[in-house]
């Protein structure tokens, strides 16, 4: 299967297999006009299987959202067809407006313009809790 290489854009590589679509939605890539490729279940020597996302435009991506979905993913910035920059990804201490609280009793469901904030409460297990009601984020 061939996917054209990109001239100027972003490649998010080494995403755990099956999490590519979640990341696609969290990064709001569906709202872009440019070409976006989601490649699922690619063979990987290191990971067995992985997902890759290629975005054919130099956009700013939310590194925290990538870290939340998979802190082992890699972000490569491509300029003039060459790898220009690599971004480090880690599990962020907090997520702002990345995911929404699903607790119907949470103030964030009704309060106007309140940012959706989640705090990392267990780094080992990657557990995030809503800052307001402490409900655990469901992955």
């Amino acid at each position, binding site marked *: 299967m061939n996917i054209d290489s990109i001239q100027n854009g972003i490649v998010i590589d080494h995403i755990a297999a099956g999490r590519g679509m979640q990341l696609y939605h969290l990064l709001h890539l569906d709202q872009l006009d440019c070409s976006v490729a989601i490649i699922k279940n690619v063979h990987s020597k290191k990971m067995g299987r992985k997902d890759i996302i290629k975005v054919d435009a130099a956009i700013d991506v939310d590194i925290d959202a990538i870290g939340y979905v998979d802190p082992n993913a890699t972000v490569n910035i491509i300029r003039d067809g060459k790898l220009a920059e690599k971004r480090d990804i880690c599990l962020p201490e907090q997520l702002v407006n990345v995911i929404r609280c699903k*607790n119907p*009793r*949470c*103030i*964030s*469901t*009704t*309060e*106007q313009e*309140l940012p959706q904030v989640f705090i990392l*409460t*267990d780094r080992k297990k990657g557990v995030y809790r*809503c*800052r*307001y*009601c*402490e*409900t*655990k984020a469901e992955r």
Partner: protein
Amino acid sequence: MKRSLIDILDLSVEELDELVTKAQDIMANPAKYAHKCDGKKLATMFYEPSTRTRLSFEAAMYELGGNVLSVASAASSSAAKGESVADTAKMISCYADILAMRHPKEGAPLVAAMNATIPVVNAGDGGHNHPTQTLADLLTIHCEKGRFDNLTIGLCGDLKFGRTVHSLIAAMCRYPGVKFVLISPTELKLPSYVKTEHIKPSGHTYEQTTDLESVMPELDVLYMTRVQKERFFNEEDYLRLKDSYILTPDKLKNAKKDLIIMHPLPRVNEISVAVDNDPRACYFKQALYGKFMREALILKLLEVE
């Protein structure tokens, strides 16, 4: 710097000890504190029904010489017109020196604290936190048992939605030698995160059971709770579970002589009225202790010496 109390864990163990000491001094010397808050105003915003907590806050402020501004319900406030919690908090900061807020939405007092310029006290946010009830519980335990450490604490009833239970466990986990006995129907078991994030990391032990009488002889403290109708989406579940545990004099036959029986109140029928005359029943004293603890808290947050 402005301090608020949203979660019981906002207070360090040292600060809790300091509040307990202060509350005991207020109990012993009320006249010394009668004018400490002269000219200060407490605003109470209760968007959910409350008798005890609101009156306790108001009585506490009056006994310190302060005044109270009160909005009794959401229906009579600007919330009914759609005002946000953030705007309400900013507005109240113009009129009062300290705000006590109860709100059905979890996290609302935190949002108020983020926007207010005055200290905010969480007086209960949905099924989430109720730190001043925990302060009342802690003072009760300290006054009646003389210590916080080396106690076996039985928590009985609705351990799933019972916010006072979660906060009390979080607070008591910070003292050594505490053992928790969790007594509830299977459907109302303590949420696993309270065990994994509070009890287990602290190294304390716990036991889970559905049988109150079998564990009664080992308890130093029995904390009864009400199955709360307002926490259920489904009335059938509420009706099925509401009478799971009813404490009667008969069930106390094998209890320790120095057991203390606590309840955050209101009681519906989970403690028989016949238990009220038992010297081990502490739940009405607990309400009184709550007032002194709120006095101590108001003094601390207003930075009154």
